[in-house]
C-alpha cells in the first residue's frame, strides 16, 4: 500500500531537465509535478486527475518540501520540511492535517465533508494497532487510494458503491492477511455477496443496492459483536430497514416495505428488540448477511430448522412434508407466517377459530386430519387445565405456609410436557403427541396430590396443635391445682 516509489535516478534526471510545464497558476509553480510529469510516473500521472490537484493542492501539501524551487536539493531538503513518502500513521496524519481542520475544509474549500473521519477511524476496528504495533491497521489510502483520489460518487473511485466490495475485499478476502488480525472472521464475504440479491444488482451497475458501507458504515466500522455496531444483532433490523422500510426507495424493486414493522411485532422481534435476547434471530439469521436473499420455498424449513431443529425434523418425517412439497407450500411459513411470526400458542392447533389446521382439514372433506387436530387440541387444553389446577393447589399450600419446594419444582415437568406437545404437533402423529401429553398429565396428578396432601397436613397441624394445647393446658391446670393443694397443706402443717 505504498503511495509511490522513489526513484532517485529519475528525479536526478528530472532536475537536470527541469522542463517548463503549463499547469494552472498554483501548479505552474509546482516544480515537483513538473519534474515528475516528465518521468511519466504513476503518481504524477494519477495526481492530475486527483480532486486535490483540482483544488489547487500540490505534491508538497502531503509530502512537504518546497515545490517552488527547481533545485532538487532545496525542494526535497529537510529544511523545507520534506517528509518523502509518508509511511504508516503519517499517511493519515497528512490527510487529517486538512480533513480534520474546519479552517481549511469549510472556510477555504467550503466543503461539506465531515471533519470527524479521522476520529471515527481511530475508534473503529480499523483504528486498532497493526501486527507490527507501530501503526494502525488501515490508513486513508488503504481505501481511497493515493494520487488519483476522486469523490466517492465518481465511478472510478475505489469507494464508489460499485467498486467498494472489491476495495474491502482487497484485505478481507486475503486469508493470510486476515488471519493475522481475526482468524475466526470468514474471508468469503465477497464471494457470498456476489451470490446475494444485493451483490447481483451491484454487479449489474445499480449503485442503490447495499454494499459493504451500507450496512457496516465507512469510517466508523465496528465489530459485529460490538453493541454500538450497526450490524450488531440488536441494531441490524433497523440497519436493514433504512432501505427496506423506505417505500420510495424500494418501489423500483417491487418489494414490500413493511418487513421491519412486521418483524418488530413478531415473537422474534420482541425478543431481540425489546428483551435484547441475542438468541433471537435478526434479519441475517434467516436471509443470510453477505449472501442475503429471500429463502426459497424449499429452504424455508432449513432456515427455521437452524434453531427449531426438532420441529423441522419432525415435520420432515411427517405426512405433511410430501403434501406441502407437492403443493409447493413453504413449510413453516404456511402456518406461522414469515416476518410477523407470532408466539406459537395452542390456539394455532385444532379446528376452531384461529386454528391453522382447519385451513386445509375440513370436517366433511378431510375427516382424519380434522379429527386428529381436534383431539390434539383437546389434549393440549386438558393439559393446560391440569397445570393450572396443580399451580392453584401449590399456591394454596404455599400461602398456608407449607413447604412445597419440591412440588413447585415438579411444576416445571408439566410445563415442559406442555411445551413439548407444541413441538410434537409437528409430527402430526396423535400417538407421539398423546405420549407426551400423558406424561404431562402424570406429572400434574403427582403435583396436585402432593399439594393436596400439604393442604391436608396444614389442617392436621392445626388439629394437632389444638389437641396438644389442650393436653398441655390440662396438665398446667392440674399442676396449678397441685401447687395450691401442696401450699395449703404446708400452711396447715405449720
Amino acid at each position, binding site marked *: 500500500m505504498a503511495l509511490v516509489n522513489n526513484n532517485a535516478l529519475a528525479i536526478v534526471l528530472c532536475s537536470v531537465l527541469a522542463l517548463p510545464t503549463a499547469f494552472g497558476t498554483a501548479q505552474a509553480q509546482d516544480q515537483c509535478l513538473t519534474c515528475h510529469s516528465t518521468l511519466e510516473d504513476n503518481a504524477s500521472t494519477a495526481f492530475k486527475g486527483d480532486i486535490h490537484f483540482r483544488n489547487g493542492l500540490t505534491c508538497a501539501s502531503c509530502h512537504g518540501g518546497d515545490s517552488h524551487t527547481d533545485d532538487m536539493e532545496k525542494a526535497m531538503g529537510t529544511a523545507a520540511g520534506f517528509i518523502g513518502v509518508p509511511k504508516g500513521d503519517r499517511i493519515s496524519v497528512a490527510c487529517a492535517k486538512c480533513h480534520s481542520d474546519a479552517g481549511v475544509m469549510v472556510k477555504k474549500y467550503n466543503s461539506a465533508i465531515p471533519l470527524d473521519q479521522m476520529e471515527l477511524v481511530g475508534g473503529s476496528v480499523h483504528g486498532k494497532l497493526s501486527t507490527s504495533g507501530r501503526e494502525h491497521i488501515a490508513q486513508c489510502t488503504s481505501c481511497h487510494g493515493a494520487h488519483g483520489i476522486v469523490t466517492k460518487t465518481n465511478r472510478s473511485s475505489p469507494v464508489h458503491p460499485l467498486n467498494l466490495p472489491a476495495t474491502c475485499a482487497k484485505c478481507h478476502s486475503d486469508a493470510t492477511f486476515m488471519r493475522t488480525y481475526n482468524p475466526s472472521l470468514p474471508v468469503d464475504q465477497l464471494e457470498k455477496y456476489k451470490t446475494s440479491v444485493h451483490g447481483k444488482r451491484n454487479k449489474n451497475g445499480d449503485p442503490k443496492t447495499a454494499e459493504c458501507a451500507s450496512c457496516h458504515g465507512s469510517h466508523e466500522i465496528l465489530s459485529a459483536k460490538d453493541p454500538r455496531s450497526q450490524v450488531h444483532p440488536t441494531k441490524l433490523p433497523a440497519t436493514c430497514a433504512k432501505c427496506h422500510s423506505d417505500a420510495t426507495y424500494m418501489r423500483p424493486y417491487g418489494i414490500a416495505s413493511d418487513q421491519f414493522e412486521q418483524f418488530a411485532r413478531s415473537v422474534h422481534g420482541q425478543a431481540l428488540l425489546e428483551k435484547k435476547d441475542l438468541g433471537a434471530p435478526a434479519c441475517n439469521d434467516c436471509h443470510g448477511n453477505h449472501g442475503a436473499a429471500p429463502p426459497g420455498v424449499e429452504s424455508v424449513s432449513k432456515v427455521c430448522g437452524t434453531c427449531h431443529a426438532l420441529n423441522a425434523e419432525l415435520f420432515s418425517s411427517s405426512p405433511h412434508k410430501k403434501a406441502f412439497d407437492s403443493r409447493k407450500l413453504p413449510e413453516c411459513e404456511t402456518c406461522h407466517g414469515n416476518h410477523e411470526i407470532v408466539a406459537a400458542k395452542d390456539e394455532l392447533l385444532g379446528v376452531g377459530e384461529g386454528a391453522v389446521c382447519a385451513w386445509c382439514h375440513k370436517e366433511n372433506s378431510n375427516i382424519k386430519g380434522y379429527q386428529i387436530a381436534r383431539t390434539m387440541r383437546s389434549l393440549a387444553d386438558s393439559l393446560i387445565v391440569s397445570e393450572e389446577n396443580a399451580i392453584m393447589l401449590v399456591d394454596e399450600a404455599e400461602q398456608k*405456609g*407449607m*413447604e412445597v419446594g*419440591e412440588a413447585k419444582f415438579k411444576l416445571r415437568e408439566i410445563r415442559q410436557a406442555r411445551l413439548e406437545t407444541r413441538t410434537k404437533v409437528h409430527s402430526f402423529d396423535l400417538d407421539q403427541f398423546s405420549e407426551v401429553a400423558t406424561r404431562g398429565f402424570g406429572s400434574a396428578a403427582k403435583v396436585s396430590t402432593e399439594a393436596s396432601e400439604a393442604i391436608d397436613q396444614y389442617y392436621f397441624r392445626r388439629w394437632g*396443635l389444638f389437641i*396438644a394445647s389442650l393436653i398441655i393446658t390440662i396438665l*398446667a391446670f392440674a399442676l396449678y391445682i397441685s*401447687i395450691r393443694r401442696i401450699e395449703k397443706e*404446708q400452711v396447715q402443717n405449720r
Partner: protein
Amino acid sequence: MKTLWNRTFTWIDERVQLSDVMHFLEKKSVPVHSHSVWYYFGGVSLFLFIIQVVTGILLLLYYKGSEELAFESIQFIMAKVEFGWLIRSIHSWAANLFILSAFIHMFSVLFEKAYRKPRELTWLSGMILLFLGMGFGFSGYLLPWNEVSFFATKVGTDIAGVLPIVGEPIMVFLRGGEDVTGATLSRFFGFHVAVLPGIFTVVLGLHLLLVQRQGMSKPLSYERLPVTDQKTMPFFPNFMLRDLLLWLLVLNLLAILAVFFPWELGVKADPFAPAPAGIKPEWYFMFMFQTLKYIPGELWFLEGEVVGILLFSLAGVVWMFIPFWDKKSSRGEENRFINYIGLFALIYIIILTTIGWLS
C-alpha cells in the same frame, strides 16, 4: 406401687446417697417478694436451651452441612420427615425465645443487683452464656444456606473484618477463607454443633453449680427487712413445680408459634446473585447493626464502623465486669447509677431494634 418406688429409691440411695440431695433440696428455699417473678427467667432460659439441644439433635439426624445439600436437606426435613417441620420450627423459635429470655434474665439480675458479692462469677458466667447463645444464633442462622442467611453472614463477617489488625484474620477465620463459601458453612456447622455446645455445657454447669451453692439472690430491700418478715418458699416442690408450670406454658407458646408461624426456609443462597434489598441480621444483633448505620463514614482519623465496633466492645467489657466495679451494691448500698445505665441500655436496645426492624 409405693413399695416399688421406695425400693427403687432405697436401691439408688444406697449407692449414690440420693437422700443427701433430697435433704439439700428440702432445705433450699426461695425468697418471696414483689420481684420474685424474675427468678423464673433463668429456668425458662434453661428449659429453652434443653429444647434446643433435643430438637437440634433430631435435626442433626437429617441435616447435611454442605453447600450443595444444606438447603435441600432442610427442605427434606420440612416436607418429608414426619414432624420435621415441627422440630425445625420449634428449634428456630426456641432459639429466639432463648435469647429473649436470657436478655430478660440478665436485665432482671442487673436491676436487682443480684450480681453483687458473692455472685460476681455467676454474673460473669451468665454473660459468657449469653454471648455463646448469640454465637449459637449467628452460626445457626447460616446453616439453612438460604439467600437471607447467606448475605446476613456476609455482612456480619464483613463488619468483623473492618477492625484494625485483628479484623482481617478474624474474618478469614470465621469464613474459612476470603469469602462466605461452603467452607464457611462447614465451619459454622462445626461451631454450632460441637465447639459452642461443648463450651456452653461447661459454662452452664458452672453457672448452675454457683446458683445452687449460693442460692437465690435477695434484693437489697428484702435483705433490710427483719428476718421474721422475709418470706420464703421451699425450692422443692413449690418453686420447682411453679417452674414446671411456666415451662408447660412456654412449651404451649412454642407449639402455637411453630404451627401458626412456621419458620420460613426462603430461597437457596446463590453466591453469584446480587444481595437482595433489606438484608438484616437476627433481631438481637439489630441494635448494633442499626447503630453502625448511623455512625458517619469517618470519625476523627478512624473509620466510623471501626469506632462503632470498638465502642460496643468497650461497652460489652464494662457491662461484663459490672460486679467488679460496682462496689456500692456489694456493700449493700443502693446504686441508682446502675439503674440508669441499665435503663438507658434497655431503652436504647428496644428503640434501635424497633427502628431496624421497621426500616
